[in-house]
């Protein structure tokens, strides 16, 4: 079924950029989109799935094995095919066995064989794993996901099975803060955090409704209309990936990033690292060869706002604090 095109989403630039950055450099470490209902959080993620360039996989591999990996067996190398980048939904109410994988019930029951049935984590390898309403997900699943996301490996020890497989994916979570906050311990495990709000301008709202209406009246037609936009963004992602290793981060930018984190008292080194990675990815996406202050400034709110020693009662939100620090540090 046709999904609403990514490029046709009105506004929400911060969220769209964050998703694209994660697509350019998965090591940024996931995107968390929190905000108003009806702002199109899940629409954006589903649209991203249709936009992402395909990847090469070993045909029939349940783990999306990469035929170009160094340790890939020769036999598998020959079976390389193109497949869409996986964007896997982790629905609410998922149970652990389906997430990490478990004994294959069908084979066990019918043939008495002990076989591992890979779970969602295997399917999401080299792609995206999306959790809507992440704040309603059971804590133990969130812990598990973040652990796997951080280590890049899924280790299963259950029912006498002992399996480990690579599971590197970009974790994308979305939710509405009114349903409950995400545990602060988990917040900073996401690379980027964006705040999403419904459009405020009338013109923008009308555009949202009009495009939605047009899409619903003629899905195929609408998607076709946006196909060239979509293709150009896809090209941009590919070009940015190719450019990324060559993007320079001058010492000045490194220092600015460090001073920014210091000024904000952002905990740990992860903030600095993410800030730098995101800035490089943005530079790559924009076709620049060098990270500039502008890049750092553009990604700093997403990269840092959830890492501040947060005052949950600060009505202004951490976004404002980041903006203040940015002005101080970057003006210097």
């Amino acid at each position: 079924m046709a999904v609403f095109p990514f490029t046709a989403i009105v506004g929400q630039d911060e969220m769209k950029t964050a998703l694209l950055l994660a697509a350019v450099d998965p090591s940024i470490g996931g995107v968390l989109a929190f905000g108003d209902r009806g702002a199109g959080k899940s629409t954006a993620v589903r649209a991203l799935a249709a936009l992402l360039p395909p990847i090469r996989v070993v045909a029939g591999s349940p783990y999306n094995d990469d035929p170009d990996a160094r340790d890939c067996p020769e036999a598998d190398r020959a079976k390389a095919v193109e497949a869409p980048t996986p964007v896997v939904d982790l629905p609410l109410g998922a149970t652990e066995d389906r997430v990490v994988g478990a004994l294959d019930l069908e084979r066990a029951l019918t043939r008495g064989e002990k076989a591992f049935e890979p779970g969602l984590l295997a399917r999401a390898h080299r792609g995206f794993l999306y959790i809507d309403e992440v704040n309603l997900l059971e804590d133990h699943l969130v812990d598990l996901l973040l652990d796997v996301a951080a280590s890049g490996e899924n280790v299963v020890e259950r029912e006498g099975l002992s399996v480990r497989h690579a599971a590197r994916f970009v974790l994308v979570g979305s939710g509405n803060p009114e349903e409950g906050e995400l545990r602060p311990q988990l917040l900073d495990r996401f690379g980027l955090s964006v705040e999403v709000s419904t459009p405020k301008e009338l013109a923008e709202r009308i555009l949202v409704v009009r495009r939605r209406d047009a899409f619903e009246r003629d899905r195929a037609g609408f998607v076709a209309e946006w196909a060239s936009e979509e293709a150009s963004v896809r090209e941009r992602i590919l070009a940015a990936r190719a450019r990324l290793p060559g993007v320079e981060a001058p010492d000045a930018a490194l220092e600015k990033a460090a001073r920014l984190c210091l000024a904000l008292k952002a905990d740990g080194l992860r903030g600095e690292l993410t800030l730098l990675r995101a800035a490089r990815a943005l530079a790559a996406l924009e076709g620049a060869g060098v990270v500039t202050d502008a890049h750092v400034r553009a990604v700093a709110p997403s990269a840092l706002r959830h890492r501040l020693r947060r005052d949950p009662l600060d009505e202004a939100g951490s976004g404002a604090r980041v903006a203040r620090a940015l002005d101080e540090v970057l003006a210097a």
Partner: protein
Amino acid sequence: MKPGCVQASAAPGAAPDAARPVDGPRPAGDVAGAAVWPSAEVFARRRAPEAPAPAPSASAAPQAAFAAGEDGAGWSDAAAAADMLALDPAALGGARLRARFGPARDAWLARLAAGLPEGAPFRRIPASVTEERLLGGLDLAATLAAGRPVTRRGVLAEAHGGVAVLAMAERAQATLAAHLGAALDGGVVRLAREGAGGAVPARLGVVALDEGEESEESEEAAPPALRERLAFDLALDRLRPEPMSADHRARIAEARRRLPHVACPDAVLEALCAAAEALGVASPRAAIFALRAACAAAALEGRAEVEAGDAALAARLALGPRATQAPAAPDEAPEDDASEDAPDETSPDETPPDRGDPPPDAPEPDADRLDEGPALGELTELVIAAARASLPAGVLAGLAAASGAGRAPGAGAAGAMRRAATRGRPLGARPGMPQGGARLDLVETLRAAAPWQPLRRREAAERAAAAVDANEDAARDGARDGAGDGAGDGAGDLAMDATGDAAGDAFPPAPRRVLVRREDFRLRRFKRPAETLTIFVVDASGSAAAQRLAEAKGAVELLLAESYVRRDRVALVTFRGAGAELALAPTRALARAKRALAGLPGGGGTPLAAGLELAALEAEAALRRGWTPTLAILTDGRANVRRDGSGGREAARAEALEAAGRLRALGLGAALIDSGARPSPDAAAVAAALGARYLPLPRADAAALAGALSGAPSGAPAATGARA
């Protein structure tokens, strides 16, 4: 009966025939008889079986209803909503019915059911539905019978193409709302549960029966995440239903054919968006719903293009009830309204002010960017005027800002008590027999049994052969229960069978049966940290002098931050003047707690007893929900207002001590912070009566106080008089 099969159950007060199942495919004759309302037959099938008939009570909160009140005009709008929904339930999401069980609600549901296409499902979902039943999963009975995994569709998938009616939506948990929301958004149920995965189509509309009493204090209402996804919000209680026409279904079917071809002029689209904005309706979903409703209205009227009247009706139904601000009077040129009055302060309901990021950049210039021209003239006015008719009462009174925050239930919204035995962090399954309330983990049990099947089948066949030689009857018993049986069947295979008839009937065991033995049984284990609720009881009276109150607020804020880290719930009880009030019902949304606190007025007498009593009520309610409440009381202890609001220092103090004693009986952790300028014996006495730790507020140092207190609520009630 299949396990987990949702079956209607009779409730006291319901008519006897209400006990008939309401689920499953609609009997064909059902609606034929319903073509002309009223039909007792339809009521019997459609009525809410588990909802006891409410005692007619004069105290029932007057529902913010159609301005039309108790007459037919309100009904015609409601009926139009039912008909629009019947055209394409999924497109409009559904409706929230604020109504008690009664003829109006029944008639509305009957009308909706009668308008749906022949054979479309009309399912009931009880608020207590389990995730497994809602989403589907492994069908254990069928799996065991077939010897291979068989999945079963959940209620949502079963309602595909029709309507699901959620009973007692005000009791629905946030997770249930999220599941419904996901199905409404995507038209599919995504499943990743024990042994089953995939996506099943579930394009449906949801009717949320909301019997909650919406008021300032109460958070009993359908979850906002669900309300957001339903186009209509109707208050039916005061409406007098009118009969349907005899050709109702045919009329709807005709309109359904017309619907895809209904054109909607741009001006209507823009007017609906402008109206949404003027009414402070932030979510674009509402405007999209209004647009679809307008098209549906035109289709129902037999028009090929949406006209002003359709747009007005749509605004009345889909926008008005969501309004969070009263629009400017129609005379004040709404064009200006639309562009300038686009306030950031839209409403606490839809746009929490704590997400005060700058609005996203204006969209890049676009080919289809509208030109903000004369289109938003008369039509917008008309649409807004229409929507005004159905504004919630609070908004009309200009109370939007105040009431909005109180109405949106947070994570702590009313809901069934969560039992640790059914939710929480699974500790894995352990072997054992299901008894003493422990639940059998069916899938894990199957997994444990699965690898042994070939071996057991072989064994069983061999044993059976041997048993035939020995004594057939003994073997038959042996298959049922191996314990102590002489036939050499000590292992005790249980051939689990879907139909539930004796395992021995299949003799020798059918090769596809799954042989489950005692040692395969796995029990579910859960570990759930006790959920805590910190109830802040804050003295806002005049005697707690202004700057002390400010300090107390500071202390409470620091404690709130502590609670945030632990993800506690908090509630805020304040007392001043004549009585106490629940300023904030239990919630995890601490920003709201902060807002409630910041807006706390000071001054007046000190009705300490009333404050403690209200705290006790809240604590009891929390205990009933399985939470662990702790109390943090900030007062100078100088009680001077009695429970009945009258003065009298001595009597008030006695009452306070008495209330404290009752509160102590609940055995809660408590701390009393003396907010007086000097430590007062009164406050110490109350703390003693409470069995609470007594902490005089260190002079002007809220941070130190929070440090002193942070251990207190969780610790056992300490000796009184302990200095910080």
